[in-house]
């Protein structure tokens, strides 16, 4: 419990009716309108919202860094009692980096590649405080200690590309804190990081807020992340603040229809497709220059009335510290919400009989040749080194089921499915699919095999060829696989478009005219055009906003149910994988460490790696209790994987074994069968693993 201070409650920063516009060819675009909030010492205000909602614009507006075409139209930013609007560039410069600091989304590009970490850090001090280089260095090293940087002295002498992404973000955070700023603005600081690294950085941010009593503006699109670090949360939509409340309050009792909609879009950890449903928000975020006349959310709102169409609501207080901008806030209850008819996905029917195995992978290996840097390599005599991207993976999938694959980036999950589909050459092992051998590359495969094995890609902006219309791109597989007679191709394309909830007007559209979600739908239509038996999904929803993500997941489920398709589904979001998959495989450094039915993976016994992944997942519910297990260090190089159990260098549970798990370094862990196809590769006995406490406990 925190002791009340009892006095002096003026906020560090107070924003009043802030409006920011960008000048474009077509006139000014109002990116942010009438946003107000305040942040006190030691408080974190989390700003959430989908992309294009103006979150980052608020952040950069706060530090008055809007580029040449951006301007503050009206409103006030009061920082430490004084207005920031209209200050001279020199005054602003003195505040930046001293009283106001920033942490950015992408740490790699935010650090200067040609200067050492030390040079970049010390200059903050030497410029603002005018202290000597040596004194500055000492303080920087101390600050790196504070952010739990291993070996700070050495890091000071390194270049940014020589340290890992998580460490880069720690450097950026340490740099921001050097001058003990009163306000810290963090723009998606963990978005580019892996879930385990993200958890560590979020812990760090919470620690630092306590120690430094800094006011933090924390921006993220991820509800789970915001729930973990914020004391209050503001929800932004189309450039407006639609709701603001303390973190527990807003997650327990969201009042604005948009906030409620967002929460219905994300699967709760532990929810699965049999027992729960995702409800996407219909429509899309309006462009800032095509706003509806009334409430900005009205076109997508289930509660909208004529009144909402005419009057734009202002943010108003509806209870102690809870503010919302909805005309009908008092009348709507989240619990009484019923989905409109057309977005209820039909649940998959229960299994009638034991399905046959469709894909059988045994000891699959994919190595990449790594060219070394020695002079011998120049003439091709160097020692051959291999990146073991996938190293002995075995599993089977029954017909019509979904296997989810999870793991940190670099664990080999993408390489696995690229090998299966023939984009990467297989180094060893076997993969049998419908009697076909998957050994050859895609270009040499039999057309029948190609037709039955398709893929849905991650990046919506790259999944479609920008040079051709939607129709042309869906037609291509139809013609190539001769799915339907040539004269029916057009009709079939229209049917496929309808199947992915796009109407036939989309036939002639160009990819640049589509939103991310629509592009992803077209990608799905293209993959399913040949009615394949197995579809590999490489993070199909991770680049999408949550409301679109829900819609795409529902769509995939629906098509899968209709066509009885088998899927392999890769995602880094453990909640999504749990929701979507029947079976889950957890990969680490090219190997499967645990595999089994989805519900079994998410409850003890766990593999220690699975356990730490689960502990790291940001859960969009502050009332959920989560164990604090953090992995140390970073993933070792797949060029030279650790001996024995590959996870032994980071395993937090080794102590459970006699002599601190010496066996883990020597011997490859045995496969232990926990029943029902649940396999764990670990030296720790199943019973011990079984007795571990569940990582996540959801309050009843």
């Amino acid at each position, binding site marked *: 419990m925190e002791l009340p201070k009892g006095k002096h409650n003026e906020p560090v920063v107070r924003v009043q009716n802030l409006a920011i516009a960008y000048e474009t060819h077509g006139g000014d675009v109002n990116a942010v309108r009438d946003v107000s909030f305040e942040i006190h010492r030691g408080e974190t205000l989390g700003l959430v919202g989908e992309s294009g909602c103006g979150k980052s614009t608020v952040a950069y507006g706060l530090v008055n860094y809007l580029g040449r075409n951006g301007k503050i139209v009206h409103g006030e930013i009061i920082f430490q009692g004084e207005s920031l609007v209209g200050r001279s560039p020199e005054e602003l410069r003195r505040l930046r980096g001293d009283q106001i600091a920033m942490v950015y989304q992408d740490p790699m590009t935010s650090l200067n590649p040609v200067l050492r970490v030390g040079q970049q850090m010390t200059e903050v001090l030497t410029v603002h405080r005018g202290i000597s280089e040596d004194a500055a260095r000492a303080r920087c090293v101390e600050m790196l200690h504070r952010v739990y940087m291993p070996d700070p002295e050495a890091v000071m002498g390194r*270049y940014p590309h020589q340290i890992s992404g998580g460490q880069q973000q720690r450097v950026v955070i340490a740099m921001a804190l050097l001058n003990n700023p009163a306000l810290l603005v963090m723009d998606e600081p963990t978005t580019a990081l892996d879930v385990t690294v993200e958890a560590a950085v979020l812990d760090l941010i919470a620690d630092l807020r306590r120690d430094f009593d800094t006011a933090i503006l924390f921006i993220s699109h991820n509800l789970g992340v915001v729930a973990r670090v914020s004391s209050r949360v503001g929800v932004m939509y189309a450039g407006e603040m639609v709701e603001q409340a303390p973190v527990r309050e807003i997650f327990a009792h969201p009042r604005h229809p948009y906030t409620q909609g967002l929460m219905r879009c994300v699967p709760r950890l532990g929810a699965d497709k049999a027992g729960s449903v995702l409800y996407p928000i219909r429509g899309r975020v309006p462009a800032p220059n095509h706003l509806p006349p009334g409430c900005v959310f009205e076109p997508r709102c289930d509660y909208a009335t004529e009144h909402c169409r005419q009057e734009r609501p202002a943010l108003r207080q509806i209870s102690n510290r809870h503010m919302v901008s909805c005309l009908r806030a008092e009348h709507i209850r989240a619990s009484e919400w019923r989905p409109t008819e057309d977005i209820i996905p039909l649940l998959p029917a229960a299994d009638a009989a034991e399905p046959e195995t469709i894909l059988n992978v045994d000891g699959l290996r994919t190595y990449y040749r790594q060219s070394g840097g020695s002079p011998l390599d120049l003439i091709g005599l160097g020692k051959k080194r291999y990146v073991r991207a996938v190293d002995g993976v075995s599993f089977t999938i029954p017909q019509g089921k979904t296997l989810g694959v999870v793991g940190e980036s670099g664990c080999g999950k993408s390489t696995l499915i690229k090998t299966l589909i023939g984009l990467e050459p297989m180094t060893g092992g076997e993969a049998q699919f419908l009697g076909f051998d998957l050994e050859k590359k895609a270009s040499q495969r039999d057309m029948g095999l190609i037709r039955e094995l398709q893929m849905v890609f991650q990046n919506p902006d790259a999944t479609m060829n920008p040079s051709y219309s939607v129709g042309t791109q869906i037609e291509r597989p139809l013609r190539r696989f001769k799915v339907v007679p040539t004269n029916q191709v057009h009709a079939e394309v229209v049917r496929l478009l309808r199947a992915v909830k796009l109407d036939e007007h989309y036939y002639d559209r160009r990819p640049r005219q589509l939103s991310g979600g629509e592009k992803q739908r077209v990608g799905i239509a293209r993959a399913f055009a040949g009615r394949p038996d197995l579809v590999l999904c490489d993070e199909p929803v991770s680049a999408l906003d949550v409301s679109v993500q829900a819609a795409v997941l529902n769509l995939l489920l629906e098509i899968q149910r209709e066509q009885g398709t088998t899927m392999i589904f890769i995602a880094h979001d453990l909640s999504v994988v749990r929701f979507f998959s029947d079976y889950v495989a957890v990969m680490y450094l090219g190997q499967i460490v645990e595999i089994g039915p989805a519900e079994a993976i998410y409850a003890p016994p766990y593999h220690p790696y699975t356990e730490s992944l689960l502990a790291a997942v940001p859960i969009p519910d502050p009332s959920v209790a989560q164990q604090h297990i953090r992995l140390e260090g970073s993933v070792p190089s797949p060029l030279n994987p650790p001996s024995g159990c590959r996870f032994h260098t980071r395993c937090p549970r080794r102590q459970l074994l006699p002599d601190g798990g010496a066996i883990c370094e020597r011997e490859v862990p045995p496969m232990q069968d926990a029943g029902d196809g649940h396999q764990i590769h670990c030296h720790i006995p199943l019973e011990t693993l079984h007795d571990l406490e569940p990582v996540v406990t959801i309050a009843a």
Partner: protein
Amino acid sequence: MITFLLRRAFYLILTLFAVSIGIFAMSEIAPGNIAINSLGNTITPAQEASFNAQNGLDQPAVTRYIRWMIGSDWRAAGLIGYPVRQIYEADLNRWSWWGALPDGTLFQNYTDDGENMIRVERLADGSTRDVPLGPEVWKTDAEGFPVFWGVDREGRAAMWVRGDDNEAWTLGKSTWRSSKGAPRAYIPLQKGLLRGDPGVSFFTRRPVAETLVPRLMNTLLLAGIAFVVVMPLALALGMLAGLNEGRFLDRLLSISSLVATATPEFASGVFLILIFSTWLKWLPGAVVVTSDTAIFERPQMLVLPIITLTLIELGYVLRITRASMVEVMRTNYIRTATLKGLPQWRIVTKHALRNALMAPITVIILHVNWLIGGIVVVETLFGFPGLGRYVMEAALFKDVFAIEAATMVLVVIAVGTQLVADLIYTYINPRIRYT
């Protein structure tokens, strides 16, 4: 990093080698005829054949390439039985080849009748004396002919056949001269490019190196001054334009640099001559070299050529630097630097400069090729006696050894600067240094 540079150096050498073959092949397939070029188009076939044989032009291309690259003296020495040596004859102001007896005496051979070989021995004071040789010098070769290998009076390794009454044609001061008892085959002696001997020019009949070097010096002077003038100026102006992106200064610099790069040297040269020489009469419109030191005595002659040469480079480098600067100023790390509250000058000098220089430096160096093109044009336009004009003349004359030597020099310069660029690049880009 060392590996990286080693790799680059390896490829550069490979490139040089490929280029040398390329040029050789190119001059090989060319339909022109050196004999006609150097002797005029009234020669008889016999005269042409004789000329070709004397100059080794009757040999297959591969043989000639090898001779040119690694020399022919070692091969000739094997046939003659004595080593051959090149000496400088100060009184005649020329280089010539002699055979060397074991006691160090230098000799050449000739015969008037195809029967009695005569050895001309060179004495210490430069005079010669004839020593007749006995019939035992004739050796039977693989095909059964009695032959003798020696060095002829022109300094070529030559093969006489006993009793042969071969006729050789040589062009004297103004008339053709035919001599009897001439050798049947020749190997023109040269040390080869790898040992620093690029051969003898067909045009001037002088060693290529002798004429090439002063030309090269002149050109290096011209290009060097141009480079020293243009680089700092262009980089500075480019940075200035990039920092003021979109403002008037930027527009002015961008447009004028575009006009400067887009105008061919001969056109801008004509404009400059018209303005500064014909109209204002400030500067001479041509370079007249009367002596070796003329350039230093009237340095104003160099002003217009240098300006002409620099205009294109100036504009080009300026544009590249500007684009690079604009790009760098938009990066996230410059945003970080700004939001760290650093003063503008510090952002520019510490954060932007090194990054912004990376692109121009590599591109500038690659652009040395263009500079060479410019040199040819500028030297032609202003009558400047440099390497560019030398190449031009050699190419028009089909003077193979001269072209090859000059080309190799130019390619070595082009390729060498690339190596320098790599060094600079690795110095300013730490990412390369550690990978």
